[in-house]
């Protein structure tokens, strides 16, 4: 692929990271936060795959391997997040993080 695409990949992953960060900063619903985190995480995964695609040999394979592991990790993380969401919802009756400000100052 040409440099346009190269730029494009970088721009895409950067944009996804920015969107993810933006989501993390603005959303109040825990599940939306999880989604935002996953968007950002996908930016990292995309980076690994993209860099792997333009490397070769062991180095490239390593990149793809990392992507595999990170995908698996991200899914696990979401599961943990959901566990916390459910427990939080049970105790506080809400999953709005703006309502969980008992601990402060």
């Amino acid at each position: 692929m040409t440099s346009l695409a190269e730029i494009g990949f970088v721009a895409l992953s950067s944009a996804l990271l920015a969107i993810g960060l933006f989501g993390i900063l603005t959303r109040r619903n825990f599940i939306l936060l999880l989604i935002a985190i996953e968007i950002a995480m996908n930016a990292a995964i995309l980076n690994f795959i993209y860099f792997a695609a333009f490397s070769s040999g062991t180095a490239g394979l390593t990149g793809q391997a990392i992507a595999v592991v990170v995908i698996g990790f991200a899914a696990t993380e979401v599961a943990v997040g959901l566990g916390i969401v459910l427990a939080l919802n049970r105790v506080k009756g809400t999953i709005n993080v703006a309502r969980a400000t008992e601990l402060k100052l």
Partner: protein
Amino acid sequence: MVFGVLIGAAEMLSPGSYTNVEYTWLHLAPAPGPFPNGLSLVAGTLVDPISALMLLVVTIVGFAVMLYSIEYMHHDSGLPRYYSELSLFLAAMSGLVISDNLLEFFIFWELVGVCSYFLIGFYYDKPSAASAAKEAFIVTRVGDVMFLLGIFIYFYHYALAGPIGSGGWAANGFVFTRGSQPFLASSVRGSSTLLTVAGIMILGGAAGKSAQFPLHVWLPDAMEGPTTVSALIHAATMVAAGVYLLAVASLFLGFTSFDLLLIVAIGGFTAFFAATMAVVHPDIKRVIAYSTISQLGYMVLAIGAGFAMLGLFHLFTHAFFKALLFLAAGSVIHAIGTQDLFKMGGLRKTMRLTAAAFAIGGLALAGIPPFAGFWSKDDILAAVYSDLGSHPAYWPFFLLAYAAVFLTAYYIFRAWFLAFSGEKPRDPTLPEAHEAPWVMRIPMIILSALAVGGGLLIFWPSFDSLLLYGNGVGGIPPVYGSTEIVLSSVSVLLAGGGILLAWRLWGNGRVFVLAETAAAQSLRRLLLNRYYFKVGYDWIGLNGVYTVARAADFFDRYVIDGTVHGFERTFALLSDRLRRIQSGFVSDYASYVVAGLILVFVLLLLIAPYLVSAWGGI
């Protein structure tokens, strides 16, 4: 004490010096620095003619006062304290006169000061006594501090060039010279600014102790102590120390010509100045106190004019008649319980011996021959006169001192007439007066004898040669030529005139009342208020120093501590503000993370590379 008399007498008989260095309390080995030959501070004894003279004075007067005290003080409480302090006082004074170096001298000097502090404040439950004691200590302390600086100057700047042994004065412990020559080389004298300063400092010390002009205020107030103490302070110990210091300094250290002029000026001026204050005062003890200041002025004058031994001779005679006056006054006070002259009167009838003693003292003080005071005072005036030719600047002070003779005779006999003449006390409420018991009479008799005959010692050859001690520098033999006889006659006439005036105004129970409208009224007020010196000093002390102290305290509490607390508050405020970022809201925390990320980027990509290249690496 008897031992002291013996030493004094022995010395009197065979002039010469005995010294004995016994104790070294600081020794620095020779080393580069201020004292290339090392430094030694020692304590020892030196008994030479002048200390012998002083020892005699101290011990005789001390003995008399002790004896007198047995009766005078017997209904006071705290007698152990009294006698122990009195003994310490005498011991310190004796130590002072036999010190063999300036430092040791200073140590005893201070001890004398503190003992006088205790004794003046003996009636400590009287606020005025406590205050007078404090005042005495602080004022003399001003002098002490100057004296201390004088010592420093001598120690440092004349220690190395000294004539004693190898290694200079410092290495030998600053012991006074043993010859009759002053320690300082003549080339130094009269030229060195530093030496002038040193002399002024020594004079300051002496002025503080001997209550000379600007530092005289404490002495009249020191009358708050028991009369016996006053007698001791005025005659033999405290004030004598100052004069003795000047004498020692002029004999062993030497003064520059400016210093000498200053000493003469202070002495002459004080002699007159103090006498004026005595003229109007109603308190019998204070009148005598002012006379002491005045007489001390004569001694200082003599020393300043270069006749140290004459000054000491006057000290010698003065000690006896002044102690006598005080003891007599004490006897009066003992008998009637007041010190106010205007309440007294007619006491000569009931207190014959006291009246006689006071009269003898008064005559001696006034300088009527053959009483002791005449010989010594006259010697001084004559000697100063003889020096006027070479030092015309002394003239005004000589005249002041001369004029003071008249005032002296006037005020002391004003006191005598007020107290003893007339028919009966002016205040009828006073208790019936009675003659003092024998224990008090004996000292008065002894002192009367000395007041009459003490001056005649000058005709005793051995004593005469004693006065020649330090010949060439510190004393000249008294010469009785025609000039002197004229001078003496005039002074006796002046004194007689004073007595006459006193009799005219106050004799026989008369009371001279100055018209309220008289122009002299303001002068009288000025004199009664002691030229407002004490008021002024108190004002400086209270309003000046104390205000500064208050201001400093304010500064401490509010500015320094305030600054610290300001820091504290700043941090607290910062902490409080920063705390708010901990909003408890997780999205905010995430914002901080992202903001931190950006901060790290800025640091990593923009600031740090710039700084690193600017510093050339870290």
